[in-house]
Structures are given as C-alpha cells and as structure tokens.
C-alpha cells in the first residue's frame, strides 16, 4: 500500500498537488515554497548559471502546476516527478543555449556536502536524498561519475565513452554496476552504512 502521510499539521505532497490542481491558491503557494529550493537547486547544480536556473525552475513549476491533474501517485513520488521534469527542462535549456553544463564531479560533491532532508520522507520511509547521497559516496569515483552523467545529465553510454575517453563497453559496465549498487542501497540502506 502506498502511504502518503502528513507531517507537522501540513498536507502531504500529494494533498498539496491535489489542491493546486483544482485551483486552490493556498495549495499552490505552499507547494512552491516547499519545492522551490530543490527545483532551483537541481537546475543550478547542472548549469552553474543562476539566470538559466531561474528560467528552468520557473518553467518547471508552471509545468507541475498545469499537469498536476494527471499526476499518478501509483507511478512514483511527487518529488521524483517534479525533479525529473526539472532535469529534463535543464537538459533542454543547456542544449538550446549550447551552454556548458557543470562537471558531474562538482554536482556529486555538492550533493554529498548537503544535509537537507525531507521530514516526511525521513519519518515514513527513510529520506531518499540521504540514502542516495550515502550510496553515491561509497561508489568508486569513475562509477559515480558515469551514473551521474547518465541519470542527471542524460548522457548515453556512447556519449560517456567519448567524453571520458573510455571504451563503450567500459562505460556501459560503469553505468550498470553503479545503478545496481544504488538500487541495492535504496532497498537496503543499512548495508550502505556498513560500507562507509
């Protein structure tokens, strides 16, 4: 059963999205305030340009607001949906402007230094951010770089092999190995603590 509980007397992400979908201004305000730092943070982490990141973050919030009625909670969390929209828009913006994205090592380093958490996640099902950051931290650097290039920057294995100067098979292996380890960490977070 999928559970979406409410913390600190506030509505859950699902509840806020629902209110926003039906034009509740208070829900829209609360949702934007809950997510704006994460949305802007992701765009800025990928672009390193506050102007581009703001454009992307604004557009991402508008998309979420417009498409809230078709969000299907059975297919994943609100956070995952919102940040995937943001990531895709950032990739499009980088391509359109022919801008140079940030280095994946810088993205990962900033993420690993962070200590924010989502109280709802932390209480109900473990904070996904902390789990993923912990898992990224224990990955070999070359695997971490490969999976961040693919998962965040949308690079194919071929593009990674060319940009990293490694054989295609090696790029594929790094991506796969890293993703399998991340999956294991999400399923069994306690195992990551043992590795650290």
């Amino acid at each position, binding site marked *: 059963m999928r559970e979406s509980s409410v913390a600190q007397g506030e509505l859950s992400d699902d509840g806020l999205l*629902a209110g926003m979908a039906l034009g*509740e201004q208070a829900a829209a*305000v609360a949702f934007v*305030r809950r997510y704006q730092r994460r949305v802007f943070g992701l765009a800025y982490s*990928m672009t390193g340009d506050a102007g581009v990141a703001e454009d992307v973050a604004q557009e991402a919030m508008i998309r979420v607001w417009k498409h809230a009625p078709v969000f299907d909670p059975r297919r994943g969390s609100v956070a995952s949906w919102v940040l995937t929209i943001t990531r895709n828009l950032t990739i499009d913006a980088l391509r359109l402007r022919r801008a140079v994205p940030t280095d994946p090592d810088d993205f990962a380093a900033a993420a690993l230094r962070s200590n924010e958490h989502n109280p709802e996640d932390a209480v109900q099902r473990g904070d996904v951010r902390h789990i993923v950051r912990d898992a990224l931290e224990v990955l070999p650097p070359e695997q971490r770089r490969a*999976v961040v290039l693919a998962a965040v920057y949308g690079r194919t294995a071929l593009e990674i092999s060319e940009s990293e100067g490694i054989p295609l098979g090696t790029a594929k292996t790094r991506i796969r190995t890293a993703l399998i380890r991340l*999956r294991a960490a999400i399923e069994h977070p306690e195992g990551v603590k043992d590795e650290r």
Partner: protein
Amino acid sequence: MNDDMSEHACEEHQEALSELALGVLTGRDRARALAHVESCPRCAEELEQLSHAADAVVQAATEAEPPMGFEVRLFERMGVADVRPKFRLRPRWAVGALSAAAAVIALGVGLSLGLSSSSTPPSTSATAAHVVTADLVQHGTVVGRVAAHGGAHAWMWMMLVDANARGTVDCIIVTSDGVSHQVGTFVANKGYGAWVAPLHVDPQDIRSAEVVAPGGTVIATATLG
C-alpha cells in the same frame, strides 16, 4: 521459448535494462529492449526497480536559494494573487482539499468526478464508472473524505484532516453482505493523513468505511451505500 532460451534472452538484455531505466537508450537498441521487457515479467520487474534507483539520483541534488523575487515572478505567471508571507493550513481549506484530492486522483485515471468542495452533511455520489465518495464523520463533524474507484485496477483513497487520530490506524470497509474487510493500516500524524490503496471489492458493494484505532475504537465513519 524454453527456459534456456529465455534465460539467454534475459542475459542479452541485462546491460540495456540499466540504460533503459536511465532513459538514455535510443534507437533500435531501445526498441529491442522494450520488446523483451514486454514479454518478460522478470525483466519488467528489474526495469521498474532500476528505474526507481535512476529517478532517485536527481533527488540527491543540493538545494539552493532562488534569486530574490523568484516567488513573486512565479506567482504572477501562475495568476496566484493571495501571496501571504507564510502559508498556514486552515481547517476549512483543508477539508475542501479532501474533495480536490479525490478529484485529482480520479482525473489521473481519466475520470471526471463532480465532487463538492464544501463540508456540508455527509453525502454519497456514484457514477457509471463505479466511483463512490463520502465524507468521513467523527462525532457529527466531517474530518475526512473517502473515495472508491472500481474497474480492473480498483483503488481506494482516504484522507483525514484534524481528526482525533494518532499513530497507526486501520481502514475497514463493510460490504453489503455485512462482511468487514481490512483495506490497510496507515499512520495518522497528529490527526492528518492521506492514503491510496488497492481495493479488492466492487465499490458499489461497499456500505461503509471506518477508521479504527488499534484498540478497536472507531475513530470516523463514512456511509457509502
């Protein structure tokens, strides 16, 4: 296809599954991998798990404070006029959101529910699409909303707002034959909570839904039929 051949086909696609999950597999390789996944439940399950891990990576991104005026510019684009310094959930709005949330979930599966957003006396509505909704009532006060949707993938949605419920509670439904069914166990945080759960009975057979404390005390009831 015998087991050996099936095993071989799965091994062939293992590498592609990761790239498919990450959304970076393209062209013919993507088509081949998708065709295999459609015919292989085991690989379909692995793809789902890998996709969950892939989606989680972007969540690791660090937060950052948007530039000054970000909110104002965004709210102007959204047409949001009432921008208060700090949002606090008002019970009246919260109860209205109950219907809103039910409608959103229904919209998500292509339905159109004509739900009222008021907190008027408990009501029940049914549509040809086997959707029933009703208010959850505690001591004569509306403290939540429940919606049950039928069809091939039936589900039930429930929301509590400011109810006298703490910790783990059970959701029980009673069908027209008088039998009680436990839909699920949830956690109510300071009286608030919202859940979606699969449903294994026809919504039109449901007579009532109850939120029950571990000791058996009925916290709130909704009359659906």
